[in-house]
């Protein structure tokens, strides 16, 4: 046991990240690089790093040092990492978490220790309404609003009845609730699938029997890919159109499923083909640096870095006064790849939501093309409950 204790001490000292210039602001990026997260954490990290590289190692003119750590999609591990970064490295700005349950374990610790957390992805309702915190910002979206936009899209496309499918976990249930909040038509049926389910034939038979005008599904990661593929084989793709949110169909998933995703309607706050200057710069730089198409997660990582940079610029690189940093953050004084962006009263985004469609272009390549705006300056359903 003494050997173990000794190694423990040595390890902690030895593992500290290499020190840069003394005035570099440390940013802790805790994300899911291994485990069940797949490519989401990678995209967020690479988007964030891209912004720093484009700034020459600086964000908002202030030199920064990013400490990237892998939480393996495990709440306990993330918490331990945050603990170490807070106590040993004295980090005061944190970001990076992909999953809401990991955030639930880690964010309270970060906030209690007097640090700031800026979320590039997870936006659970726990922190959006009554549980909102002054040092907590979300740059991506509040989880429900993603699906509210899908409900609105279903309205606009004129579908009078929709069948709902989601994975049987908290995010899945939140997804359906968000959808139903905005969708005005009839819910033809609901199915919850298991998190380790590989075969959706039973659900397809139910869908066929209910004969809705459209299907809305929320199946994360690999489950979504399987669902799209099997949907096509079941002959449903051409019969019953699908409406999904961008979590279920992005550029990476499109590459993987190919034609099975043709014609699917997607809602998103960001797309590769947005033609505002900030996005054009981002996409060009990303294509040079990486060999895969950018996803919304990459753009979120990038935007988060810009948001932090804007805050750092506002306080001139001095983060000792957290209130000043917070005020600077709230101004959201940066050009987002999405176009219009500002923070709502609960410090979650107020932004536009767009309709996309998976289509084939002239040269036979598949792409997600922006079709039109669904919601303008949309916040979220919890903002009114937030009182600092």
């Amino acid at each position, binding site marked *: 046991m003494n050997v173990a204790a000794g190694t423990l001490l040595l390890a902690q000292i030895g593992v500290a990240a290499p020190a840069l210039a003394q005035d570099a602001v440390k940013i802790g990026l805790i994300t899911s690089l291994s485990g069940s997260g797949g490519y989401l954490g990678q995209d967020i990290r690479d988007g964030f790093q891209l912004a720093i590289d484009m700034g020459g190692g600086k964000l908002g003119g202030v030199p920064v040092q990013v400490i990237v750590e892998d939480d393996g999609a495990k709440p306990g591990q993330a918490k331990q990492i945050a603990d170490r970064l807070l106590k040993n490295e004295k980090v005061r700005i944190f970001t990076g978490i992909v999953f809401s349950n990991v955030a639930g374990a880690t964010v309270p610790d970060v906030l209690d220790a007097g640090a700031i957390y800026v979320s590039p992805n997870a936006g659970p309702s726990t922190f959006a309404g009554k549980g909102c915190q002054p040092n907590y910002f979300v740059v991506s979206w509040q989880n429900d609003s993603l699906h509210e936009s899908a409900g609105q899209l279903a309205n606009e496309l004129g579908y009078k009845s929709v069948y709902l499918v989601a994975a049987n976990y908290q995010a899945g249930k939140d997804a359906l609730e968000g959808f139903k909040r905005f969708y005005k038509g009839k819910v033809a049926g609901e199915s919850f699938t298991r998190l380790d389910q590989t075969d959706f034939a039973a659900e397809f038979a139910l869908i066929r029997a209910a004969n809705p005008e459209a299907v809305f599904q929320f199946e994360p990661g690999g489950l979504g890919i399987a669902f799209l593929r099997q949907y096509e*084989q079941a002959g449903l793709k051409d019969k019953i159109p699908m409406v999904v949110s961008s979590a279920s169909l992005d550029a990476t998933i499109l590459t993987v499923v190919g034609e099975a995703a043709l014609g699917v309607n997607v809602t998103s706050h960001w797309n590769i083909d947005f033609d505002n200057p900030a996005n054009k710069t981002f996409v060009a730089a990303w294509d040079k640096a990486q060999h*895969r198409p950018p996803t919304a997660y990459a753009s979120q990582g990038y935007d988060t870095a810009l948001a932090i940079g804007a805050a750092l610029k506002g306080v001139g690189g001095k983060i000792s006064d957290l209130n000043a940093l917070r005020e600077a953050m709230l101004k959201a004084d940066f050009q987002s790849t999405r176009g219009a962006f500002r923070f709502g009263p609960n410090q979650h985004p107020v932004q536009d939501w767009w309709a996309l469609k998976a289509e084939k272009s002239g040269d036979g390549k598949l792409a997600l093309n922006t079709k039109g705006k669904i919601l303008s300056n949309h916040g979220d359903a919890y903002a009114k409950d937030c009182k600092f």
Partner: protein
Amino acid sequence: MIVLEQILNGVQFGVTLFLMSAGLTLIFGIMGVINLAHGSLYMIGAYAAALVAAHTGSVGLALLGGIATAAVGGIAIEFIVVRRLYERDHLDQVLATFALTLIINQGASMLFGRQPLFVSMPAALSGSVTLLPGLIYPVYRLAVIVLGLSVAAGLFLLIHYTRVGMLVRAGATHRQMVRALGVRVGRLYTMVFGLGALLAGLAGVVAGPITSVQVGMGEQILILAFVVVVIGGLGSVRGALFGALAAGLVDTMSRAFLPMLFRRLMDGPNADALASGMSSISIYLLMALVLLARPQGLLAGKP
């Protein structure tokens, strides 16, 4: 009509489970080795098939490539690691094969990245066919059912009508005796492990076009395969077939019809919550019931 379709769905799911669990029951039952790396062999088969298909565009080559890679991988694992574990505790086997899973999964992610792979559906098998008026069924799934049942038949012939099969059956029940009779048990074990790995790889190849080919895909189905093996009885391929079909049908039927059933008995959200909870655990419940009634499994002792 929907009942018929759901039954077909259940059978097809069962057949996919069978391909995974046949190999597992052979390894588990005959060699007494708990092989947690079986899911990784499944993944190796799927990855190999996807990569070969991407490079050559040929379905046949992809199939061959997938099962060959999985078989070779299995033999390599047996030679390097598993061979030294036969005399050891089950616990050591668990730890060693779990470590192998970590190595293989992370190795795949280091070599091929964390993005899922693209697998195209073989053109000949895409689309649906009308079996009966009102019953439209995808061709690919029918092909999977046919393939799975032929594999089952082939295994049955192998085990009951060949010399090798006789040795396998003997080794399952009287390992020491087989050794004492001068049979090279080591070679037999390697062959059995390779066969099990080949079956797992085949399951992976077959699953490629309809699921997501990514790191960790084997873990989801591995646990169900273990459940099926236990329901059917260790070492019994016949048991694996019946167990897999039973599990597939139970799971599909509960997912299809429980929500409806519960909605008749109680109101909206409670019914849904209860129904989805029940259908999640339906396979485990089935196994628990089988074990409490007949602990060795349904067809134990009948390879």
